[in-house]
């Protein structure tokens, strides 16, 4: 049964909120299917940035003048909005970062260095982005911890039985992706967290790809840490969020030293500020933090459930349409997916596919998607990935199909 929810969304009106979409690229109307890399920004986000710089640009927190007060108040309003977005218990559990990668590194370098020791085991999965592999490898190298990897099956799902076999009293940390950027698989993170907690391990969830597509409730998940980037949910680049349980964040040492993260500095000893400021050294990315409020509000107005239902209809349409192309194989066929279609064309290099689609005005991503171990699992060097956002349409997917038929005609 076709649900009516997504018909509530007026896609044509939504598209008008994203001025960048209305342009001709290489002689053809742009089709933007690289949303898993970064989404485009709606007018309310662009306007929030302009309003800040035109109206109340000032450094925050310690200024006593009116502009500083206004900027501080908008900055902290974003923190409260993110608290609601994640359903975090406390506002000070929201730490602003530069992005998902930054958040993972923060946890590895503070929680990891303080609490993990030689022989402790850290579990990640085969489908992790390099950002959720390398920070843990660096920690393992330094501390002598052991990295364990949850395997996946041919559909692109984690093999839970294998995960259970990896868990033991030696497991101290589990860091897994909520939604795979290369496959689209939505992982059963609540179960993963439960099982990790049962052996006393802490869990970080990489929510970079999940945040714009599915509802996140860190309390219901019982996640210890949750990280994501604003630029993948219609917000600005260079701004991300680390959620951490208050008791854990309290116990962690600060990472970067500088302004704002201190209570008092003398040459003999420095005392550190309270949460969340302990982890926010230096002037933060004020404008982009403020603009995130507009991005969250935008999603809220559309309704995340409506967005998810509409994107799911695009995924189904694309899966069927692309599946009808001879020699095209979809990589990642989990029953639980967000609107990402990764695929290979027999005998055609993904790079050539990307170039020729671009020449037809269609923007996709090609390559290993920063998931080289995952690509190796499928014996591939890369795929072509089309990822959809709320402003995409079935007509655009038809353009992709036509574009791919052209690629095949030129190559074979």
């Amino acid at each position, binding site marked *: 049964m076709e649900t009516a929810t997504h018909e509530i969304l007026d896609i044509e009106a939504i598209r008008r909120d994203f001025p960048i979409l209305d342009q001709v690229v*290489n*002689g053809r109307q742009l089709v933007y299917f690289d949303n898993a890399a970064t989404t485009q920004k709606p007018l309310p986000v662009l306007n929030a940035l302009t309003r800040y710089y035109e109206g109340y640009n000032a450094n925050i927190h310690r200024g006593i003048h009116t502009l500083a007060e206004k900027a501080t108040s908008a900055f902290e309003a974003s923190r409260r909005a993110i608290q609601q977005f994640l359903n975090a218990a406390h506002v000070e559990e929201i730490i602003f970062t530069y992005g998902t990668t930054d958040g993972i590194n923060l946890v590895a370098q503070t929680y990891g260095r303080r609490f993990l020791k030689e022989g402790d085991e850290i579990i990640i999965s085969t489908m992790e982005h390099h950002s959720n592999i390398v920070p843990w490898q660096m920690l393992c190298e330094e501390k002598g911890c052991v990295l364990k990897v949850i395997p996946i099956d041919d559909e692109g799902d984690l093999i839970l039985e294998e995960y259970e076999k990896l868990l033991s009293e030696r497991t101290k940390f589990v860091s897994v992706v909520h939604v795979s950027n290369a496959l689209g698989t939505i992982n059963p993170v609540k179960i993963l967290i439960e099982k990790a907690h049962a052996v006393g391990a802490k869990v970080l969830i990489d929510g970079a790809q999940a945040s714009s597509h599915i509802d996140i409730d860190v309390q219901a998940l019982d996640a210890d840490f949750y990280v994501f980037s604003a630029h993948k949910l219609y917000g600005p680049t260079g701004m991300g969020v680390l959620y951490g349980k208050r008791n854990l964040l309290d116990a962690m040492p600060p990472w970067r030293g500088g302004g704002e993260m201190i209570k008092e500095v003398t040459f003999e000893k420095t005392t550190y500020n309270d949460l969340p400021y302990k982890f926010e050294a230096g002037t933060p990315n004020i404008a982009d933090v403020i603009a995130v409020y507009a991005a969250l509000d935008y999603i809220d107005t559309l309704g995340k459930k409506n967005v998810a239902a509409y994107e799911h209809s695009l995924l189904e349409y694309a899966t069927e349409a692309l599946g009808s192309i001879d020699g095209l194989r979809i990589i990642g066929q989990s029953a639980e997916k967000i609107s990402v279609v990764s695929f290979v064309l027999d*005998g*055609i*290099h*993904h*790079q*050539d596919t*990307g*170039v*020729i689609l671009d*020449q*037809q005005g269609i923007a996709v991503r*090609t*390559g290993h998607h920063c998931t080289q171990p995952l690509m190796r699992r499928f014996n591939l*060097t*890369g795929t072509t990935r089309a990822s959809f956002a709320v402003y995409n349409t079935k007509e655009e997917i038809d353009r992709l199909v036509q574009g791919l038929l*052209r690629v095949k005609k*030129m*190559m074979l």
Partner: protein
Amino acid sequence: MTINEKQDEIIEDFDLFDDQLDKTQYIIDIGKKLPPMPAQFQTDENLIRGCQSKVWLHAEMRGDTVHFEADSEPTAQISKGLVSLLIRILSDEKAEDIANANLYFIDRIGLSTLVTSRRAGGLASMIQQMKQFSAAHIGTNQAAERSTI
């Protein structure tokens, strides 16, 4: 033919096409005609560090000229075509002429968007390596002894 005469000839060929897709098709067709590289040259040392597809380049002195062999992995057909164009223009020319060559054909045939390190298997690095090898061998005449990259 000099390097520039060869470039001019290629520019003339590409002038027949207005559409970027037709130009790309032409590049692909040129690539299909590139003779396969001897397997012994497809080594890790000869790999050009490109981002997405594998391209190998082998260079050796033949007298005072530089002979190049190059190839890409079989499915990377645009890279193969671009490689083929470079070989056609630069191979068996004098080391000094290669090192000093101004490869204006890239802009003139509208390829500049393809010749970035990310999009064409490191074609820019390939040109750099061809020039570096040649620059290092200016004035040498190695009929008997072969020097390779």
